[in-house]
């Protein structure tokens, strides 16, 4: 039985709402690194049952040494003020987690798609899925040492982005830049609130 006493960081009861942001991208693109750079707690991992095994709660309760799970996702947390808990979920990149990730997108405020300039096309699928799910997102190039550098114009063309979708370049290892895609995402959301959208006047002249 794993110990769970020392590392549990509870939220104060004053927290009234959580916010979910998901980080997507191919395996090894730096999702957990980015989450680790921004999170106030050491990133936690959840497990997922292998699909062919029974998932009944009672069965698992009797199997403390169960061997039917695998790590599904890493996530981190950021408390804002004393009433908001922001969660960053790293969506597993492997295709077998597809359904899991589609579920994860539900209820997300927005998404961050991480990309590596050495394999830009590996991020296309993640963009499509956020697009289809109607979840607002920003594209973030994680600048790996030695990876080719491109101008923003070239990257926008490579990702086939419209002018409205933000593109950010960051170093996921450093908090000062790892937070940039988050800032960009929230700005993007602010620019698209109903309040800022021009509303037709109910004119009856």
């Amino acid at each position, binding site marked *: 039985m*794993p110990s*769970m006493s020392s*590392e*549990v960081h*509870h*939220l*104060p*009861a004053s*927290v*009234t*709402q*959580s*916010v*979910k942001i998901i980080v997507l991208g191919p395996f090894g693109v730096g999702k957990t690194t980015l989450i680790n750079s*921004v999170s106030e707690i050491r990133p*936690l*991992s*959840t*497990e*997922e*049952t292998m699909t062919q095994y029974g*998932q009944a*709660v*009672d069965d*698992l*309760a009797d199997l403390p040494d169960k061997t039917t*799970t695998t790590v*599904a996702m890493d*996530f981190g*947390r*950021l408390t*804002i*003020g004393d*009433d*908001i*808990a*922001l*969660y960053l*979920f790293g969506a597993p990149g492997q295709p077998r987690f597809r359904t899991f990730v589609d579920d*994860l997108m*539900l*209820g*997300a*405020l*927005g998404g961050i798609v991480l990309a590596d300039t050495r394999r830009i096309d590996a991020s296309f699928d993640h963009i499509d899925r956020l697009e289809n799910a109607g*979840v*607002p997102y920003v594209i973030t190039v994680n600048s790996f040492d030695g990876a080719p550098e491109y101008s923003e114009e070239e990257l926008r063309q490579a990702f086939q982005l419209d002018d409205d979708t933000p593109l950010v370049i960051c170093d996921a290892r450093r*908090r000062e830049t790892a*937070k940039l895609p*988050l*800032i960009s995402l*929230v*700005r993007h*959301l*602010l620019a*698209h*609130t*109903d*309040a*800022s959208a021009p509303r037709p006047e109910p004119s009856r002249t």
Partner: protein
Amino acid sequence: MTPVRRSRIGLVRSHTPTDGQARPVRSSLDESTLLYPDANVDRGGLPVMANRVMDLLAPGVLSLAEISAHVRLPVPIVKVIAADLVAGGHVLARTPAPPEQRNDCELLERILHALHEL
């Protein structure tokens, strides 16, 4: 001048205390759902894992994903346990409502400010 924005504060937002309990419990639970324990409800008869979750929650509030990580059970299973705890009144669940949050300027501004300060 902020009268326009201030008027938004009066709207019903995602964190009204009934949110998460008003809807069918299971479908409203999410990885980022916050669970608030109610220590006053008798835990007699709770299944083992449900009791473990309540022990974990005793000091304060956690998200469903955090519970999943700490008790080392997959999220879908923790959702089922949590749904039963909600139904039994042992915990109150609050699930984010992104469509409302995306239009909550005050919330977004506060997140933005916090990120800049990070």
